[in-house]
C-alpha cells in the first residue's frame, strides 16, 4: 500500500466571465511512488488542475490535501521543498541573465536549504551530474545550451531541494524527437533511482504510457476516465479515450514492434503509394 501524497477533492475552478468552469468537480489522488499521467487536449483543464495542486491558484470549491493535511495548513517552505515543477518551455522558464549554477541553486536559497554557499554548490554539482550535465556547466548561461540541455537544467533545479513529488507540464513537447527520448529516459531514471513520484501533464498518451502507472483522462474540465495506465489503454471504457488513442500518429506496426521482433513480422501495414489507399492511416491507427 502506498500513502497519499497529494490529493484534490471535488476541485472546481470557475474563471470570471466564462460560461463553464475550467475544472469541474475533479477528484485526483497522487500516491507516493505511483506516477500519474494527466492526459487531455487543449481546454481539458490539465494546467488548471496542475496550478491548483501546486497551490499557485485556489479552487472555487473543493480542497487540496498534502500528506493528509489541507494545503493551507502545510508550511509553505515544507510544501515547496517537497513538490517541485518543470514546465514545457525551458527557454522561458530559465532566467537568461543568471548562470546555470545560480538558477539551480535558487530553490535552495529561497527555501533556506544547505548551511552555506559551499554546501549549496555541492548540491548543485550533484544534481547537474544527476541530469547528465557537467558540474562545470554551472558557470555557463542558459543560451549556451540546446533545448534538451536547458530542459535538463530545469529538471536539475526542480531536483535541487530533494522533492518527493515532481510535477512536469508537457516537459518534452517542445523538444525534437531524439532529444525527447533522452529526457523521457532521464525522467524514468530519476523516478527509479531517487524514488521520486512523477505527475506528468501531457497531451501525449505514448509518453504517459512510458512513464506513468496511473492515468487520468480529462476533457472539458472533467475526468473522463482514470485508472492503471495499462487498463485504460488496453480496455478504454470511454469513447473519448478510444478516440484519443486512435488519433496518435503511428509508424507502420512492424516498425513499432518491440526491438528484435521487427524482422519476424510481415510488413503488413499499408503505406501511401504501396497500397494507394487514402484510408491507410486511419486503419493503421484504429
Amino acid at each position, binding site marked *: 500500500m502506498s500513502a497519499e501524497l497529494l490529493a484534490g477533492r471535488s476541485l472546481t475552478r470557475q474563471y470570471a466571465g466564462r460560461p463553464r468552469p475550467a475544472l469541474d468537480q475533479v477528484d485526483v489522488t497522487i500516491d507516493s511512488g505511483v506516477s500519474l499521467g494527466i492526459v487531455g487536449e487543449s481546454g481539458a483543464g490539465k494546467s488548471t488542475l496542475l496550478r491548483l495542486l501546486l497551490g499557485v491558484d485556489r479552487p472555487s470549491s473543493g480542497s487540496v490535501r498534502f500528506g493528509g493535511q489541507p494545503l493551507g495548513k502545510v508550511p509553505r517552505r515544507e510544501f515547496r521543498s517537497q513538490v517541485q515543477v518543470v514546465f514545457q518551455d525551458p527557454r522561458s522558464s530559465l532566467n537568461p541573465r543568471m548562470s546555470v549554477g545560480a538558477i539551480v541553486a535558487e530553490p535552495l536559497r529561497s527555501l533556506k536549504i544547505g548551511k552555506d554557499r559551499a554546501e549549496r554548490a555541492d548540491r548543485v554539482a550533484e544534481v547537474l551530474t544527476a541530469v547528465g550535465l557537467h558540474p562545470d556547466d554551472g558557470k555557463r548561461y542558459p543560451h549556451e545550451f540546446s533545448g534538451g540541455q536547458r530542459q535538463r537544467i530545469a529538471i536539475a533545479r526542480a531536483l535541487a531541494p530533494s522533492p518527493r513529488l515532481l510535477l512536469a507540464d508537457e516537459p518534452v513537447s517542445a523538444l525534437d524527437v531524439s532529444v525527447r527520448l533522452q529526457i523521457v529516459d532521464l525522467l524514468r531514471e530519476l523516478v527509479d533511482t531517487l524514488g521520486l513520484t512523477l505527475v506528468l501533464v501531457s*497531451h501525449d498518451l*505514448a*509518453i504517459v504510457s512510458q512513464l506513468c502507472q496511473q492515468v487520468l483522462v480529462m476533457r472539458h474540465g472533467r475526468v473522463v476516465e482514470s485508472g492503471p495506465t495499462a487498463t485504460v489503454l488496453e480496455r478504454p471504457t470511454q469513447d473519448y479515450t478510444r478516440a484519443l488513442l486512435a488519433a496518435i*500518429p*503511428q509508424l*507502420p506496426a512492424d*516498425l*513499432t514492434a518491440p526491438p528484435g521482433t521487427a524482422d519476424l513480422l510481415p510488413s503488413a501495414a499499408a503505406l*501511401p*503509394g504501396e497500397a494507394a489507399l487514402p484510408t491507410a492511416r486511419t486503419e493503421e491507427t484504429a
Partner: protein
Amino acid sequence: MTTILAAEHLTVTLDDRTLVKDLDVELAARDRVGLIGESGSGKSLTALALLGLLPEGMRVSGRITVDGRDLIAAPDRDWRRVRGNTVSMVFQEPLTALDPLMPIGRQIAGPLRLHRGLNRTDAQAQAVHWCERVGLPDPERLVRALPHEISGGQRQRVALAMALACRPRVLIADEPTTALDVTVQAQILSLFDELIEETSVALLFISHDLPVVAGLAQRLIVMRDGRVEESGATGDVLRRPQSAYARQLVTSAAQVTRLTVGTVER
C-alpha cells in the same frame, strides 16, 4: 505525370553560411512528398524558397521551375502570379496567416478575386463552398466570423480553404498540424487525403513528426543541418534507411510513439 514544381540543386545561403544545400524535389499532380527534419534542418527555408518568399539577404541558387519555367532569379512580380495560384501554402499557426480584422469569407474570397478575377458575389459564394468543403460547420454563418471567434482546428480549415480555393496544383504545407490537438490533427490529416484525391493537388508536407509524414507521403526527403541526408520511397526510408541519421530518426520516432504498458499492442 508532368512535373509542376521542381527544384534542382536548390541552395540557400546567408553570408558565408549554407542553410540549404543541393536539395532536389519534383512534384507532379497527386504526388505526396514529405520533408522531414528536426529544428534548424532547413525544411522551412526550403518551403519559403519554393514560394519565392525568402527573407531579405538570403541568396538562393540552383533551379526552381514552375511548369518548366525557371523562377530562381525572377522578379517578385512573376512570383506573385504563381504564389497562391499555381502553388499555394498553409503554415503552422493559422492565426498569424489570417487577418484578425477581416471576416473569414472575405479572406478566402480575396485570392479568388485577385487570381481568378471573380466578382464579389461569386467569390463569396466560392468562399462558402470551400468552407463547407473543408468541413466547417454552418458555412453561411461562419464566413462572417472573425478568426478569433473560431477554434484553432477551424482556423486551420479556413487556411486550407484559402489555400485551395484558387485550385492550386501544388500545396506546400509547413507543419500544418503541429499546433493542433491530436484528435483535430487526425481530422485535418484525413482532410488532406480527401482533398488530394478530389482536386489532384500535389502536396509537399513539411514536418518534424515522422509518423505524421509517413502516414501521408509516398516519398520522403530527410534533412539535417541544411543537407539532404536521404530521400526515397516512404517504405524504403522507413524500413531500409541508408543513412545513419534516417535510421536514428526512425528508431527514435518508433520509440517515442510506442505505447509500452503491459501487453498493449497496436
